């Protein structure tokens, strides 16, 4: 069984369907040279990502903020003013808000995984349900939203990292639900997801907030039993 370079790389890029993926994994088990080539491909991905990650993690330089400023009104204000504004300005505000905050204001906001509450972003729908009920230890491998780390923040709140197809991030439990502390673009819409993948910015934010280490399975289950208090 020969795996060509394009197939091997598509495997590393998470582009193969389940059957093709299994075939590569079987071949890897029989062929150490292939397994080593896959490891090299993964190292290259990591090397490139490490090189450019700082740009995605740095705060947005002021020159871009200034560009986006005029239409970039706070979400709550934009929503209140939505009816009064002429359409192009609503679009500009929506686009700018998306560029700056990573969310789309307007209709999509209330049907997606995120809603606004008092100007802050909170999880809703399937995302809120996953944060409420799902345990990292027992979640199905094909869960739409996967929970990563659960931990207690130094502020005392319980926080969880999550990854879904459209959005990944870090949410902390407060009285009104799960407040989104940090969000990033979701995982790619492919069948193959690397087990330990996660946005490095979000993991770094989680680590910075953590009091002690992440919860183990027992602590996570106990936290759920106590309503994430």
């Amino acid at each position, binding site marked *: 069984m020969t795996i060509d370079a394009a197939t091997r790389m598509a495997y590393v890029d998470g582009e193969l369907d389940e059957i093709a993926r299994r075939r590569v994994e079987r071949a890897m088990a029989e062929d150490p040279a292939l397994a080593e080539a896959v490891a090299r491909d993964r190292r290259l991905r990591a090397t490139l990502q490490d090189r*450019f990650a700082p740009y995605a993690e740095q705060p947005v330089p002021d020159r871009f903020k200034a560009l986006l400023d005029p239409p970039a009104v706070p979400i709550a204000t934009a929503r209140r003013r939505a009816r009064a504004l002429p359409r192009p300005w609503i679009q500009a505000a929506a686009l700018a808000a998306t560029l700056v905050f990573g969310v789309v204001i307007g209709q999509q906001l209330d049907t997606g995984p995120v809603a606004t509450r008092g100007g802050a972003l909170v999880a809703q729908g399937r995302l809120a349900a996953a944060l409420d009920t799902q345990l990292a230890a027992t979640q199905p491998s094909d869960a739409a939203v996967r929970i990563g780390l659960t931990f207690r923040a130094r502020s005392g709140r319980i926080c969880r990292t999550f990854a879904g197809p459209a959005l990944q991030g870090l949410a902390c439990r407060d009285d009104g639900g799960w407040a989104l502390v940090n969000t990033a673009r979701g995982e790619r819409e492919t069948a193959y997801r690397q087990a330990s993948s996660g946005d490095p910015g979000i993991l770094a934010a989680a680590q910075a907030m953590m009091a002690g280490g992440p919860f183990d399975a027992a602590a996570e289950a106990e936290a759920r039993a106590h309503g994430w208090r």
Partner: protein
Amino acid sequence: MLVPRLRRFAMSLSRSEADGDDLCQATIERALKARGSWQQGTRLDSWTMTIMRNIWIDEVRARTRRAETFVPAEAGDSVGDAGHRRMEAAVELDRVDRALATLPDEQREAIALVLIEGFAYKEAAKILDIPMGTLSSRLVRGREALMQALGEAA
């Protein structure tokens, strides 16, 4: 947040902080101007990166060919010289940059979209306006060249 990702893509295309930030600024300006052509519900990241890539091709690459350079970013910019020097000082970063510099543009942009930005092949092929097979072979050749340049030849 899209702007940090746009900057990252701009840096991997231009491999220069000053050029990358200029590219990023031009992209945001054009995106805001062309906002009418973006359809809500479609992927904003793909749309803006397509704009960025087109600007890169139309203007920046042409300028580079004529050996002209962008006006350097103003002093006091939040990504200043200190950050630049720090980046350049790191030997490992330098090594990766040199390896990337050996790639033809068409391979580098494919690598940037898939390996750095994490786009699916389908989305990346759409941004670059090429068939999936072409994208796949550019990814293979680009990666093989990078590994060779990094001393990880297969």
